[in-house]
């Protein structure tokens, strides 16, 4: 019983982190078509913000990280990406690759390569069904999933979300309707970047913070987005759950190295078998019969 509870808690906490990463990456990729290979470095920025501002209380520090993430997102979008969208995904991908190098080497120049750490604001463990588990891990998972839910709500259930989706679908038409497309695109990228920075900030008390720390998070986020339906934020979140579940189960029951091999092999197979993403809707084997057209 203890093993099952521990496993469930581990999946839940990892899912919270991966979902926050995936929704940020999915927003940038699904809405803007940009493959953000700097997503891991944005996580690293969040972790270093928490380390560098250690004298500031934890919650205000998180808010500062959010602010820095938004500003960084605006700067990257305006200075690097804004003139590259029309040149295709390769241009934006390479540009973001350059951004990742600049962020990583910048952190290396400022903080060096010695692993740093951030003190968690909560040190206590909580007893759940007889299993003692670090409370901070559970709290950040709940916070992360609440943020993910808020992003979905805004995107699909508010006028602002409608404006964003309309702009993505047809910028010219959105512009004619009075929507400023550049502002929406910049804002969307900034929010996606901010979510990555926030994920790093929340996770920082569990990490050895170095300029390379973000590298470990790029692959899970990519696979989460790939496992979802094209352009679907809920799909990316579902993908994050699949990655977290597989990763935790495999690492619990296999040795670590074999678990990594099997995990990525399984994810590759899943992506290959379902190139349009995992869909929970029923598969249609036969085309639906069209209703008879009645002549006017």
């Amino acid at each position, binding site marked *: 019983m203890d093993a099952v509870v521990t496993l469930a808690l581990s999946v839940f906490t990892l899912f919270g982190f991966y979902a926050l990463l995936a929704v940020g990456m999915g927003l940038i990729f699904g809405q803007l*078509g940009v493959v953000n290979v700097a997503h891991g470095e944005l996580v690293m920025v969040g972790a270093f913000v928490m380390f560098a501002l250690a004298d500031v209380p934890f919650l205000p520090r998180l808010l500062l990280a959010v602010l820095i993430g938004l500003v960084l997102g605006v700067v990257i979008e305006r200075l690097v990406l804004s003139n590259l969208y029309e040149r295709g995904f390769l241009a934006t991908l390479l540009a973001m690759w350059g951004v990742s190098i600049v962020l990583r080497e910048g952190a290396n120049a400022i903080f060096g390569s*010695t692993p*740093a750490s951030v003190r968690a604001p909560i040190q206590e*463990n909580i007893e759940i069904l007889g299993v003692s588990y670090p409370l901070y891990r559970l709290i950040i998972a709940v916070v992360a999933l609440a943020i993910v839910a808020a992003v979905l709500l805004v995107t699909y259930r508010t006028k602002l979300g409608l404006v964003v989706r309309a702009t993505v679908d*047809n910028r010219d038409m959105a512009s004619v309707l009075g929507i400023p497309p550049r502002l929406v695109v910049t804002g969307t990228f900034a929010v996606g970047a901010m979510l990555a920075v926030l994920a790093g900030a929340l996770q920082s008390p569990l*990490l050895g913070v*170095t300029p390379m720390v973000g590298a470990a998070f790029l692959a899970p986020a990519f696979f989460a987005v790939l496992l979802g339906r094209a*352009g679907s934020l809920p799909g990316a979140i579902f993908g994050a759950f699949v990655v977290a579940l597989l990763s*935790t189960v495999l690492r619990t029951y296999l040795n*670590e190295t074999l678990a990594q091999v099997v995990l990525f092999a399984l994810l590759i197979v899943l992506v290959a078998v379902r190139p349009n993403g995992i869909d929970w809707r029923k598969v249609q084997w036969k085309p639906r019969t069209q209703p008879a057209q009645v002549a006017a």
Partner: protein
Amino acid sequence: METTHAARAGRGMTALRRTSGIIAAVTLTTSLAACAGGAIGGGTEGGDDVFKVGLISPVTGPVVQEATAMQRGFELAIEKINAEGGVLGQPVEVVTVDDQADAAKSTQLAQRLISQDQVDYIFGTIPGDTTAAVAQVAESAKVPFSSAILGNAGVCGQYFFPFGEPNASLLNGLLPQMIADHGTKVALVGNDYAFPRGYFADARTVLEELGATVVLEEYSPMGTADWQPVISKIKAAAPDWVLTAVVGADATALVTQADQAGILDSMGFTGVSLIADFYPGLTDRMHGLTLVGRYSDQLDNEANKEFVDAFREAYDFSDPIPSVAANAYEGMLMIADAVEQAGSTEGADIAKALGEGEVENGVFGGGSFNEDRFFMTETARFEIREGGAYVPVETFPADIEGITPRCA
């Protein structure tokens, strides 16, 4: 032209799937460029009696921290040697290259250092596989080579002189003490590369001799950030203590998460994850824990005081000084002395002098190579105290029991 959201996203999905291939291609191109143009320093065509050293320092890549510390110790030694008149009456020349901890690059760079830069000695690199790669090239060219990182190199050679701490010297004093303090059930947790596997193989040998039982042996890939599954396995195995060989940022993450899970309070915890290199990220989490090693900046002798003062001043460094820096410093001083003793920069002469040489009053006190080509010194059990003071509380004589491979 209008595009629908779904169509654009669909193209994006295809694009995303092409990403990994493109990144791989660009990385390869960059790596080849780095190989071609990585040399810095040195550059003059040395005369016959100018001692020229090639330093392979992976200051980019996964072992930046260790490489930086090694290079700093090495450079301080070169500075001291040249300030005292150089070797054979001339300043030592250095050619520095970066192998990025990649064995293929290490081989190419070692070949280049020997054939193009015509170095008399090769020093450095960090991981076991790059060390083996360089040792092979150096051995066939009869150019002496030394590494400085802790752990058994796993290779032997007439021209290979590793200055790192042999596994057994890290284990022999430690394991009996941990068994006495905590019990006989042991969990082994390391990163998945050559050093932890060799370190644990030697640990198993010693533990079995001492009647202890290994209840868990787990290796995680480098770059592991989430240690919760491993921590769950440790809790399920219920060992009396944990011996670690997790390094770098992974060590910080493991110790931090183990502390949050209550492991540091409920069982013994020691090993390579507690070395001075990782203290800055862990600080008070490590206080009161102990480990066995060769070096601490707290060692009380004149040579160490001089080295510590020079290191702190040169690099504005206030954290505990890593042992790899001291190994590189002491190693390079011993090499320079061996060249003086040999009176020649010929590889065979230097190798003979090094094999017969002995350090007296060095940063570790005394030290020399044994017949298996391990650099043997006294070791100590260090207690980690406030401010990162690794205070020696017990010393052990040089001990080679359990060392593999034997090269004599």
